[in-house]
């Protein structure tokens, strides 16, 4: 993975010093609350419901065991002993004191980490495919480009005070696992007409109050033009994006208001002016960064795969078999596997990990995965280079730490924001609902019968939980001080990205799991052959689901007007 050199280290060290002084000036009264806010936000520091929340950047979701141990240390020393992995492959700490944040940043800097631009109206953490570099369906590893964009966007002098936050994702695989199309800029590595690899550029995707799927504004961009093209897009946005209304300030609103064609024209015109400037990326730099993402030294296929007992165990131990089927994924190197560590144990909040678990996972990574860990955008972790022969001992170890729940991709593998329990913006709880769903759907056989199924839940319309692109989306809304939940069906985040359709009026808190059950019943009745939920849904439409959920006893439904955003 990428290693800081003297320059990278210098920048994070200077950032620590800068933020320490900003915080000192704030505490001394030299900076007002309003003046300090954008400064702390650009360091991922929010003032939340109970305490400050610090979001730490995990560039494209890649962690070393050393870094994960530091996150555990921070959770223990400055927080209440746990952290929350987010849908942007970052980690959030919910209980640090404001005064301790400069020290936390210094600790992070000691392991080549930071909280730079994890919030604020600037370019945020660059996200990517959690199987980058190990996926069989990959055209090219996207991480070198993520790192190049990370460096370009870090303290970008022109784009640090944008109209609104700005998210970029890059994917290099046939199957989009990075939800590229719901980002402000989405980038796919693609092959051009001459056979060489370049980028397809999408703009204007995003969820929140007014969700949009991104629009392709350039089918093919040569690699050397990556930064000049991004700079052209950002410049147009910085100048023309709305600043009068924060709910209409994202680039998706500009793209939609101007029209894709006119927006593309503006970008292309600006790009023509700057494309052959010092922004041009030379091959030497691409190659240099690529060098950091070379493969670890894998064992030979025979050595990696050798475990004579495994075939027998898969027959005899049903729970091991289930885990292998759900949580163990293919790896491009023969004899190797990628192993999901589920952070969706029924008894814990989705995406949370304790310091003890983090330390344990770091040990497992050292022992079984070339010291490497990935964070996925659906809030799980991955050990990315596990020898097939090590699966059984690894599974045994993970079980003891509640990290072997065999539910990856299943209904209980929910995406969930922190909700009303922690977040200032939330209208309703998310964690309670996750628990309600877990309590109701606790039969693994049933879950496996349903198969791949994504529930995504946000406690407010800012959509941190990506509810618009869940097969079932759940949006928490506030109705006269009471929590209600708006369901959507048929959303998807991958190559076939689609915004879910509103099922009907919001439902009461206690009825959420019951309602999901009804939706599942309709699916199971209607599905043909091996159809996944999404296929059935697209074939039969929303009506049968509506009828089942709302027709039976309408007297129980609360009066609820259409919720903004739908």
């Amino acid at each position, binding site marked *: 993975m990428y290693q800081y*050199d003297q*320059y990278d280290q*210098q*920048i994070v060290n*200077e*950032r620590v010093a*800068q933020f320490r002084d*900003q915080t000192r000036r704030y505490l001394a009264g*030299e900076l007002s609350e309003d*003046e300090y806010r*954008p*400064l702390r936000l650009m360091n991922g520091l929010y003032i939340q419901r109970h305490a400050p929340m610090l979001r730490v950047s995990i560039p494209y979701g890649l962690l070393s065991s050393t870094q994960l141990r530091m996150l555990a240390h921070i959770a223990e020393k400055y927080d209440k002993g746990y952290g929350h992995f987010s849908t942007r492959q970052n980690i959030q700490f919910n209980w640090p004191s404001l005064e301790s944040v400069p020290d936390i940043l210094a600790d992070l800097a000691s392991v080549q980490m930071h909280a730079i631009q994890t919030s604020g*109206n600037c370019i945020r953490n660059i996200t990517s495919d959690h199987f980058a570099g190990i996926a069989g369906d990959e055209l090219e590893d996207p991480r070198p480009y993520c790192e190049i964009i990370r*460096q*370009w*966007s*870090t*303290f*970008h*002098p*022109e*784009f*640090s*005070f*944008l*109209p609104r936050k700005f998210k970029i994702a890059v994917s290099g695989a046939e199957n989009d696992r990075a939800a590229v199309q719901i980002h402000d800029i989405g980038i796919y590595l693609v092959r051009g007409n001459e056979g060489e690899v370049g980028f397809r550029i999408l703009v204007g995707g995003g969820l929140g109050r007014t969700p949009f799927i991104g629009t392709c504004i350039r089918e093919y961009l040569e690699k050397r033009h990556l*930064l000049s093209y991004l700079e052209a897009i950002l*410049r147009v946005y*910085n*100048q023309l994006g709305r*600043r009068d209304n924060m709910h209409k300030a994202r680039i998706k609103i500009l793209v939609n208001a101007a029209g894709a064609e006119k927006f593309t024209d503006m970008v292309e015109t600006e790009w023509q*002016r*700057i494309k052959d*400037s*010092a*922004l041009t990326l030379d091959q*030497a*730099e691409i190659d*240099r960064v690529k060098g950091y993402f070379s493969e670890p030294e894998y064992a030979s296929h025979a050595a990696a795969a050798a475990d004579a007992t495994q075939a027998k165990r898969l027959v005899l131990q049903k729970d091991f078999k289930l885990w292998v089927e759900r949580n163990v994924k293919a790896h491009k190197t023969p004899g190797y596997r990628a192993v999901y560590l589920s952070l969706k144990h029924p008894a814990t909040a989705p995406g949370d990990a304790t310091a003890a678990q983090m330390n344990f996972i770091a040990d497992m990574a050292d022992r079984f995965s070339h010291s490497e860990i990935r964070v996925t955008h659906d809030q799980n972790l991955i050990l990315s280079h596990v020898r097939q022969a090590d699966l059984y001992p690894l599974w045994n170890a993970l079980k003891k730490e509640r990290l072997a729940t065999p539910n990856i991709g299943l209904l209980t593998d929910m995406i969930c924001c922190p909700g009303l329990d922690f977040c200032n913006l939330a209208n309703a709880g998310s964690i309670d609902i996750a628990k309600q769903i877990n309590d109701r759907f606790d039969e693994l056989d049933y879950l496996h019968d349903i198969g791949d199924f994504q529930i995504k839940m946000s406690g407010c319309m800012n959509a941190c939980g990506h509810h618009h692109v869940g097969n079932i989306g759940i949006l928490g809304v506030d109705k006269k001080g009471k929590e209600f939940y708006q369901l959507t069906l048929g959303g998807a985040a991958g190559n076939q990205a689609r915004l879910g359709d509103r099922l009907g009026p919001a439902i009461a808190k206690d009825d959420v799991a019951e309602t999901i059950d009804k939706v599942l019943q309709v699916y199971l009745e209607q599905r043909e052959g091996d159809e996944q939920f999404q296929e059935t849904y697209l074939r039969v439409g929303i009506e049968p689901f509506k009828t089942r959920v709302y027709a039976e006893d309408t007297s129980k439904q609360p009066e609820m007007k259409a919720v903004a955003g739908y």
Partner: protein
Amino acid sequence: MRVIKAGKVLEDNWQRIASLEQEHVLEDGDWIVPLDYWRVNRERLLRHNGRVGVCLNGDDDLEHIAEALGQLELIALEFPGFTDGRSYSHARILRDRFRYRGELRAVGDVLRDQLFFMQRCGIDSFQVREDKDAEDAVKGLSDFSVKYQTAADGSPPVYRFRQQAGK
């Protein structure tokens, strides 16, 4: 006007008028005037006894002054609130596209923690908000010694240094 220039706080002769009747005739002296006033009174201002600069805000279209840049010794860029980042792009475009070589001055909600960014976009003088200590704000110019990306300050991207070091 008390400004930061070349890393020092100094007093200069420029005065800025935020709004002016179009018919108003300026007294002798160095004035920074709004764009619309300058556009109407351009011919007269060329004969003005003193220097003339124009103040632009984020809404102003730079094409309106592009051909006249040679006549302007100073352009002030307004930051109505320090989170309004449009003038950063204005600065880059004036420097990089239009090759403007006069003085670019940040005015308005100009605070210490923005100076590093402003300087990199080609702004070379800073009128720090009146209630703030300008001497303290000077420190903001040197928050970082390494710059990842190229900008209007002529600084090459850091990877060029890496390549040199690698050779």
